[in-house]
């Protein structure tokens, strides 16, 4: 009789386990990262003397930093990193010609021999614009031109120009999933090397699948740091290469994360930047409640382009964004503290070691 009971329980156990609907997001191969070869703690330092009240984010552009402002006369405040001085207010708010109604998004910096440009999306006009920063600052008037209208593509969150005829786009599909594609000579081309990340759908909240997305033009690689899951998805836009980095031993279950009550949410990544030899992700691993109260912690995780961990820098503040200038200086911006502030650290030796080692 005991034997029969055991078999019955076993059947129940097996059936019970198999009915659990687990879903993970992955770009084919998963690279689990348990530890970093080197970890460094940075001490708190004095903020740079810049007036950053109301700034929510920053876009580094060579020796300039564009701070994004939600409320004010203009959406951009440009500062020089060489002199730590304010240079100009750009992108006036308004309904007129060359005025903007919403904060621009999906910015990317393009540097040519003669000019430094920033391309950005304007949600109200559904248009990709290019601002020639060099000419704008030289002549004291805005050099901004529309370069691509994307009205026919609903729900785009990223539009990045890769060349004159090639664009990378990422957008949501009826608030249930994110999809990515290339637009080559106005022809849509699906990405076939990205695993299941285009196919996973959620029921509750699209931000379960949200990520900060950056494209490295010289490598034609895209990195996506997930906001609510412990992973970074990396995929090529020109070859079959793709992988997922998971810091930990198990990928987050999409359905579990999606079903979490709002107060129980967890923050994983907040930003990501790409460089020639590596990419760097801003990692929180803290509850949303602590994050909002500014009680959380943050660190910068460095990976090479094969997905190997290189370095982890633990920051003394909850950072919002960061910038590594010339493999030397680390700038960290925080809008989560009592006052918005930018901090500068000399990381020459640290960064030299990972560039040489990679």
């Amino acid at each position, binding site marked *: 009789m005991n034997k*029969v009971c055991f*078999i019955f329980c076993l059947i129940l156990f097996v059936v019970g386990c198999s009915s659990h609907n687990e879903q993970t997001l992955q770009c084919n191969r998963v690279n689990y990262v348990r530890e970093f070869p080197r970890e460094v703690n940075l001490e708190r330092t004095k903020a740079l003397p810049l007036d950053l009240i109301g700034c929510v984010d920053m876009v580094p552009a060579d020796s300039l930093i564009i701070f994004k402002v*939600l409320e004010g006369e203009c959406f951009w405040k440009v500062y020089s990193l060489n002199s730590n001085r304010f240079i100009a207010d750009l992108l006036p708010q308004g309904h007129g010609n060359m005025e903007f109604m919403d904060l621009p*998004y999906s910015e990317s910096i393009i540097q040519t021999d003669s000019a430094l440009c920033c391309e950005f999306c304007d*949600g109200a006009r559904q248009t990709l614009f290019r601002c020639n920063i060099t000419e704008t600052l030289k002549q004291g008037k805005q050099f901004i031109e529309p370069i691509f209208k994307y009205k026919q593509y*609903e729900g785009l969150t990223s539009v990045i120009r890769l060349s004159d005829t090639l664009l990378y786009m990422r957008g949501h599909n009826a608030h249930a999933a994110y999809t990515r594609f290339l637009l080559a000579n106005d022809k849509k081309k699906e990405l076939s090397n990205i695993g299941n990340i285009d196919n996973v*759908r959620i029921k509750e909240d699209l931000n379960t699948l949200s990520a*900060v*997305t950056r494209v490295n033009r010289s490598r034609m690689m895209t990195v996506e*740091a997930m906001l609510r899951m412990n992973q970074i998805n990396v995929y090529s836009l020109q070859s079959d290469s793709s992988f997922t980095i998971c810091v930990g031993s198990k990928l987050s279950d999409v359905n579990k994360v999606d079903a979490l009550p709002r107060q129980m949410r967890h923050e994983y990544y907040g930003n990501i930047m790409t460089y020639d030899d590596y990419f760097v992700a801003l990692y929180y691993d803290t509850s949303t409640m602590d994050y909002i109260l500014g009680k959380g912690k943050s660190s910068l995780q460095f990976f090479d382009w094969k997905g190997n961990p290189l370095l982890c820098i633990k920051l003394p503040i909850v950072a919002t964004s960061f910038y590594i200038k010339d493999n030397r200086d680390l700038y960290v911006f925080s809008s989560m503290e009592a006052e918005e502030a930018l901090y500068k650290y000399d990381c020459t030796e640290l960064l030299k070691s990972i560039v040489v080692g990679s």
Partner: protein
Amino acid sequence: MKTKTFYVIAIATSLLTSYIAYQAHEKQDVTNVLLSNVEALADGDYEPEIRKCYSSIHHKLGAHVIFCDTCKDKPDHTDDLFCLSSTCREKL
């Protein structure tokens, strides 16, 4: 006695299996409906009118929300933690 136990286990297992199969089928149905809606939307045949939105939002890089005042997508924004969701009618 052994035959009786065998029948009990067989019936219990078949009932359990049927229930699980039914559940899986139902899930598949819901997914299919969702998928067909998504496809219809992509084709432009379907116009969603009511959208879940939030009236209190803040900047968050990479996130995405619908702002009730405009009923439009707001990239790089998310809902405030204690703001309840509402609905709005999409302005076409």
